[in-house]
């Protein structure tokens, strides 16, 4: 059942990109299309290998490019770079701690869109960047900061439920143990 977790994270990423194009009311209220992909990248980088990170960022990055005015391929770069850095440094990060997950989600929620805008600008794409971008990044950062620990909690529970656990020790095992010694 080890394939369930990678498949579900890919499906959730696919749905997350689709929902970015919907939820008109949330978009109007927040002033930005709400994306939880950065939080998912953090989760994916901490719990899966780099191959899975590449696949996940391809699905979400290229999917977002296809559903927007961006050039196909640019949207893959920043999530992959973020996922790569987190994946290769995960032994140095307090990934089990909720507050660390919050700050990592917040950081990625700000850094990934900012990096994407910089790449678009470098590619002469003229993205709509202005004073309101600061507000949009702050909203995305806070949403991903809140979403990241929630994803860890939900997926860890899901994994425990779906994956094989260790063989439980029989209560008779103790009785069968051979007593050694002179006593």
């Amino acid at each position: 059942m080890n394939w369930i977790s990678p498949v579900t994270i890919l499906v959730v990423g696919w749905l997350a990109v689709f929902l970015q194009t919907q939820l008109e009311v949330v978009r109007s209220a927040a002033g930005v299309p709400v994306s939880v992909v950065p939080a998912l990248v953090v989760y994916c980088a901490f719990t899966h290998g780099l191959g899975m990170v590449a696949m996940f960022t391809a699905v979400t990055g290229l999917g977002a490019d296809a559903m927007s005015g961006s050039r196909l391929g640019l949207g893959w770069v920043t999530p992959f770079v973020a996922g790569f850095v987190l994946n290769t440094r995960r032994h140095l990060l307090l990934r089990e701690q909720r507050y660390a997950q919050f700050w990592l989600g917040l950081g990625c929620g700000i850094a990934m869109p900012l990096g994407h805008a910089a790449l678009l600008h470098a590619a002469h794409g003229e993205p709509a960047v202005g004073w309101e971008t600061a507000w949009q990044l702050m909203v995305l950062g806070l949403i991903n900061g809140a979403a990241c620990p929630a994803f860890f909690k939900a997926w860890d529970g899901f994994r425990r439920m779906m994956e094989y656990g260790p063989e439980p020790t029989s209560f008779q095992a103790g009785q069968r143990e051979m007593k050694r010694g002179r006593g």
Partner: protein
Amino acid sequence: MLKRAHSIVVVVVGLLVLLLLNLPPGVASRLKLAVGGVFLPLLGLRSAAHSVVETASYEMLPRSTLVSELRRLEQENAALRVESALGAEAIAENQRLRGQLGSVPRGTWRPRLARVVGRDATTWWRTCLIDYGARDGAAVNQPVVTAQGLVGRIATVGHSHSHVALVGDASCGVAVLVSETRDHGIVAGGQSTTDVGVVEMTTFQQTPGVLAGHAVLTSGEGGIFPKGLMVGTVMDARPARSGLYTSARVRLGANLNRLEEVWVLAP
């Protein structure tokens, strides 16, 4: 040091990104639409859910409301038929006179209804997705409007869906004129995505006559949008610092935040 497996993944991703970014524009556009195809099941599900909710809401309406609505629509239909007949006569006369003057006859447009099924996935562009594609006769640069005003133009065309670049997007500048003063100007691309209902217009020269409340229409220059389409209303106008032109904020006629159905103008 990177592990060997990590290096392989990084190199593969890097090569694929470089390949995607260096594709010829036509191939990249087709590939983009093909990648967007992975969302078609969800778009279909969304449309099905929408129609179920719509049908259920109609079922719940009382018969008396439906009958009164039917009568109102019949009357409106009759009035529109008369107006259409008068309009057709005026168009025919206009074409005849233009022909006599030797000018090029203005093209006629057939409006085609389309439903908005998605918005731009990122915050950097003003685009939306409509369920009107090549199978319905969609083509790049066809104007998209609502009864309230201009929405944008078709940017890319897929088999069943098309991307529309909305007014103010980097790929949808519009040549405009102020109806009351006949001053020409432009609504440039790359405008804010926070409030998509407002765009910035600049005139080609200092025009103190442009005031709040003046109507802004398409000027027909550029060849994409027909002349005379409603764009919006001037909110406020001020001279530029250089004094060479006037800047004005324009409230768009079409509510781009609440687009549901739009009309594509097919030639």
